[in-house]
């Protein structure tokens, strides 16, 4: 996209989206810690909601973006789409890991156990496995076109797989609360919590966008460097 020889590399410049994302994250957590009351029965442990749930949202969002970018790549063969898929998958792994780490931290005080084979927990764990498999596959294919093609196939099939894993593990058993916020009769949560909750969602989504932008800039430079090395 950019001519690397004349402009400063995109990875060196400070991305305004990243600045905004960090500011909103700070705002959301300031609000969550100091201005949102603790939950009546769970106490302070419930605060982890503001990390856990938004991270889970971004984890699934990232996988959706990876799958869509891959699908479009198959038709358009635009390298930027493949870089988007790659970046989104890598950022997605980070957020999925955050979900898997914060989940047990919350589960121990509230459910009394670090890990349980609950439906949504298991689904997230498999999401993580699919992501990692996807990235391992990318890592072993040196050719750019072949890598993009194979990754697109795995990304698309992975997106198809998610509902099936969801169905199976849900049928197996679930411990998670039924929807607390997104339900037809309105959120079963005090407004002050809902506001913080949505602010945290917005903050994490911005953070996702910022991370993907940074990762894409890196991928663009890497590809340009490869081209320069091959083209001489």
């Amino acid at each position, binding site marked *: 996209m950019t001519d690397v020889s004349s402009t400063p590399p995109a990875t060196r410049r400070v991305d305004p989206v990243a600045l905004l994302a960090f500011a909103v994250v700070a705002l959301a957590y300031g609000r969550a810690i100091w201005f949102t009351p603790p939950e009546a029965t769970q106490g302070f442990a419930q605060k982890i909601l503001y990390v856990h749930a938004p991270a889970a949202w971004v984890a699934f969002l990232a996988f959706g973006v990876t799958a869509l970018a891959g699908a479009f790549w*198959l038709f358009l063969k635009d390298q930027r789409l493949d870089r988007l898929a790659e970046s989104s998958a890598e950022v997605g792994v980070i957020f999925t890991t955050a979900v898997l780490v914060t989940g047990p931290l919350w589960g121990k005080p509230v459910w009394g156990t670090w890990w349980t084979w609950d439906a949504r927990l298991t689904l997230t764990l*498999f999401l993580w*496995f699919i992501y990692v498999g996807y990235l*391992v596959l990318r890592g072993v294919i040196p050719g750019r076109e072949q890598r993009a*093609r194979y990754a697109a196939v795995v990304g698309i099939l992975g997106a*198809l797989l998610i509902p099936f*894993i969801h169905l*199976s593990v849900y*049928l*197996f058993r679930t411990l998670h609360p039924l929807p607390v916020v997104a339900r037809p009769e309105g959120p079963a949560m005090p407004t002050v919590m809902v506001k913080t909750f949505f602010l945290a969602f917005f903050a994490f989504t911005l953070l996702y966008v910022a991370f993907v932008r940074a990762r894409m800039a890196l991928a663009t430079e890497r590809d340009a460097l490869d081209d320069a090395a091959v083209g001489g």
Partner: protein
Amino acid sequence: MSAPGLLGSAWLIARKDLAIEFRTRSALLSALVLSLLAIVIFYFAWDSTAVGAGDLAPGVLWVTFTFSGLLGLHRSFGVEAQDGAMDALLIAPVPRQAIFVGKALANLAFVLGVQAVALPAMVLFYDVGVGAAWPALIGVMILAAIGLVAVGTLFAGLTANTRLAELLLPVLALPFFVPIVMPAAQATAKLLAGRPLAESFAWLRILLAFDLVFAYACMLVFPATLDD
């Protein structure tokens, strides 16, 4: 001779693969021995006085099928690596999807062949009373085998051209086996416990939907895994 259609070409490719397998018998024999070994070894992994063999049987059976299936799937594109056989297959005037369907059919025969030996072996070794559940149990086996083979064939083709193929195939394919192995094992457990088939309908619906969606989707995306 005029070029055959999708199913005709697929049939030819499946027959070719099965002929190779039948003449060498290397993979099928290994897979059979592996599944028998697994069934025998798993028996000793639990305290047989604490856990009844019948309670272990469904889990052991499905873990065994999953891994012996992977063994066969890996071979399915491995045989094309020699002497540029894959290139010859690509040059042949057959639809690309026919290669997938043919390979999948051969793999299905392979997996069903392993199941045909491993299931009676487990019934024998674990002293499981199947009784009237045989037809339903065989139905579950076939439903699960279709999904396993559809996804497995695609990933076998995908990983065949990469280094680490034998490692990458299970890493990629196993998460996809979750919605197959979980329903199949749950339905098997219910059937072996003498519960009516109707109790397993929810699981069987997932299996059937998986088969339909993934058989079609894998066939559709398969050409993207071929390198011209």
